[in-house]
């Protein structure tokens, strides 16, 4: 089956291993992630505090493009894109005034917005459409003895209207990790913010947040962290160098995209190009657990 897919910017750059592993894993599951044409940034880079309208335009344009190409749904991998597209959709679906404001900017578009298009996260597809039970049967390389901490961050569960699971106590990622054969570890900081874009302007804020998250996972004996957000992954993975300086005795912990582990568990070989994009090398752990 073909799934119309919206990549977003980061998946074409820093997080290309996220996209690559997702496409390959989905192929094994018998689904093609078909990239939509002419997509633009989801709009998340606009600051909401400066202007609460502008950030919605890019998102809505993406939805118009999808409609033009005959899609009634879009699948995202990036938590941020998922969240931004859905928030913009809710912004104009809920209030005709907002719809008018946004469409007034789009007088050059050939097509009108309608509410029919749905935006899903790949987790929604895996759980509700492909079904975890089906995936479980296709796992050839179970991630035995790997103790993984699911990291949701904010964007998959807040605001609660687009939460992919219960917003206070989600388990959708843990359930996923379990069907891959891994041990899913609960730890208290799995829903805390990683510091997001503060990493650009106030790095110390993000460093402190990430230290708390990673430390909380390590205290619960996690071998690695699993996420679906490129920004979270960047902060949690690449800031570990700073954390080491700041917090004496901190030992590194690898950060995975869930799709890398999905591909691996489904029997796809771990690719060297994926490792290159990790700050903390995941290979020693995977070798230690005899997964590669």
């Amino acid at each position, binding site marked *: 089956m073909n799934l119309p897919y919206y990549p977003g910017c980061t998946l074409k750059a820093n997080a290309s291993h996220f996209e690559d592993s997702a496409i390959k894993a989905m192929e094994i599951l018998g689904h093609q992630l078909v990239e939509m044409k002419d997509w633009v940034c989801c709009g998340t880079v606009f600051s909401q505090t400066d202007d609460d309208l502008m950030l919605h335009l890019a998102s809505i344009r993406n939805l118009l493009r999808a409609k033009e190409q005959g899609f009634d749904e879009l699948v995202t991998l990036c938590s941020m894109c998922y969240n931004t597209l859905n928030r913009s959709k809710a912004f104009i679906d809920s209030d005709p005034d907002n719809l008018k404001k946004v469409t007034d900017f789009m007088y050059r578009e050939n097509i009108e917005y309608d509410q029919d298009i749905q935006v899903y996260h790949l987790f929604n597809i895996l759980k509700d459409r492909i079904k975890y039970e089906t995936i479980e049967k296709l796992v050839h390389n179970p991630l035995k003895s790997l103790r993984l901490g699911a990291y949701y961050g904010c964007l998959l569960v807040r605001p609660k209207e687009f939460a992919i699971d*219960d917003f*206070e106590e989600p388990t959708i990622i843990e359930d996923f990790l379990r069907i891959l054969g891994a041990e899913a570890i609960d730890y*208290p900081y799995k829903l805390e913010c990683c510091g997001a874009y503060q990493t650009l302007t106030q790095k110390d804020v993000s460093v402190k947040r990430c230290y708390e998250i990673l430390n909380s996972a390590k205290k619960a004996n996690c071998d690695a962290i699993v996420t679906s957000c490129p920004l979270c992954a960047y902060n949690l993975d690449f800031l570990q160098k700073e954390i080491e300086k700041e917090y004496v005795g901190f030992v590194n912990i690898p950060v995975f995209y869930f799709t890398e582990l999905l591909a691996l568990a489904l029997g796809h070989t771990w690719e060297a190009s994926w490792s290159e994009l990790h700050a903390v090398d995941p290979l020693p752990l995977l070798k230690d657990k005899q997964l590669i």
Partner: protein
Amino acid sequence: MKRIGVFICHCGVNIKDTVDVELLTEQLENYPGVVHIENYMFMCSDPGQNQIKAAIEENKLDGVVIAACSPTLHESTFQNVIEEMGINKYQLEIANIREQCSWVHNDKEEATRKANLIIKTALEKLRLNESLSPVSSPMTKRVMVIGGGIAGIQAALDIADGGYEVLLVEKKPSIGGHMIQLSETFPTLDCSQCILTPKMVQLAKHKNIKLYVNSEVEKVEGFVGNFTAKINRKPQYVNPDICTMCGDCIDNCPVVVPSEYDEGLSWRKAIYVPFPQAIPATFTIDTENCLGFDPIACGECRKACKPEAINYDKKPETFEEKIGAIILATGYDLYPVEKMAEYGYGKFPDVLNGLQFERILSATGPTGGKMLRPSDGKIPKEIVFIQCSGSRDPERHNSYCSKICCMYSLKHAKLYKHKVHDGQPYIFYIDIRSGGKRYEEFIQQAVSEDGVIYIRGKVAKIYKEDDKMIVHGMDTLTGKKIEIKADLVVLAQSMIPSEGVNKLIQNLKLSTDEHGFLNEAHPKLRPLESIQSGFYLTGAAQGPKDIPDSVAQASGAAAKVLALMSQQEIYHEPIIAWVDEEKCSGCGICISTCPYGARALNFDGIAEVNEVLCEGCGACISACPSSASQQRNLTDDQINNMIDIILQDNLENSLEKEDMI
């Protein structure tokens, strides 16, 4: 034709600002049957009532329409007025032009047109009203109180002291309710058990009170003054007359289950006394957990019982009791922590609810009154109390305020400090609600003398790290995130209607609010009774309440019941169904539709109406295929005439509009 007077009330500006009362008066002046019409600022006032009386006398009126507020407010006021003037009170009709017109509309012209129609329908109905007299029936001078907590106990004692017989029905094996679990009570810190047990003993010994424990009310039939209650009582396996209370049975019972009295913090056997001061003081066998019903499996307690007081063959009993009034004192439970993801779904042993903490504070509790935490028996040095846990949270939990938590959380902190002098209590709060006699002083004293630290904000998350409970919250006064490494956390859980009450309420057909608390007949002026005649409310069954409020309401409801009991006969509204015997075919459809069991076939095969049971709901009337069943003063003819008037107006109106086109 009846000589009818119409009286239009301004209700100050409530009606007059939206409905043109002068125009109405003009429009209806020449309506058939109207011989007098006037409007006045407040018809319900003394001068207003006198005007009505004068008009009745002057114009020899024999029917009155009052166009004013809802009949639930002043129908009886005006009925009294016309009765004083010698007119039957069923010759009065209220046209509700306030709640159903002026309050809900803005357009004066349209509202006036609607008010005109409402009055006309009342006139049409009144034209065919019969003069009726109330149905009377004898008064059963016995009262049933459901629930044996402090509210039920107080109500039962007051009524019994008034000289009437009381049946107290309690679901649990002992009376005492939640109050018997408490350590000390705010704001005086007197021992809860010390003030409650004398009342419990007094109740047990009272010559006018019959106590049924382990019992539940299954069904109530009848009406005020003449109820029949069906009560189920669990089997009494231990004969209290033979039992010597030696306790050999407990020593030999092999089954251990969590104690309800200690809120699961200690254990009890399957044969047990709920607590030392239980009333009645006797052993109970918990049928759900006892193995003795299969004699091969167990039977240890019977073997151990020297006086042979235990008999496993006892069966549950069902019996009926006749009563005249019912007091509902079914109390509360705490909102389950198991529903709260943010506070750990009840999986942490060191996160307690308020009642569990009461047990830890209590001398009869699981720790013998020592301040020790459940997980490892250590003395907690830092303790966090969280108010509004599950309350004032419309998004996730209950929207309402549970009212008593501000005071009891503080009491907990204070009592904790009295036991652990070097300990530090913190209280997370949204607001402090200390409206009550000496309540505010109690709080101020705790802050200044006991060093209780108040933090304004909600706790977002609790989790365990090593042997500490980490409490993540926000201090909204400084805007800072707060993390407290606590040894123990106490949640002031929201109060909810007690478990199992829903079924009872449904069976009794009582009305509740959206949260399941019993509805009072009027939120301000009739807070002690249900809208269903003969049912009275006390305590937390009606809404979250503390002990003083529950006791006050219980005594109030008891006074209401005593006034009712002092009457020899009870009067019943005559607006009920009757049967035109010539039309009735005896099909019996009315019998199956009647929710009150008021319909039956007589010897001639004609469907009769039991006048005291009929509540006048009208179900049988709309179901009757031959129009033989009719409602007094709401006959098909009357309703058709009322509809005709409205349709006629609509027709004229639409013709007018066509003309305009």
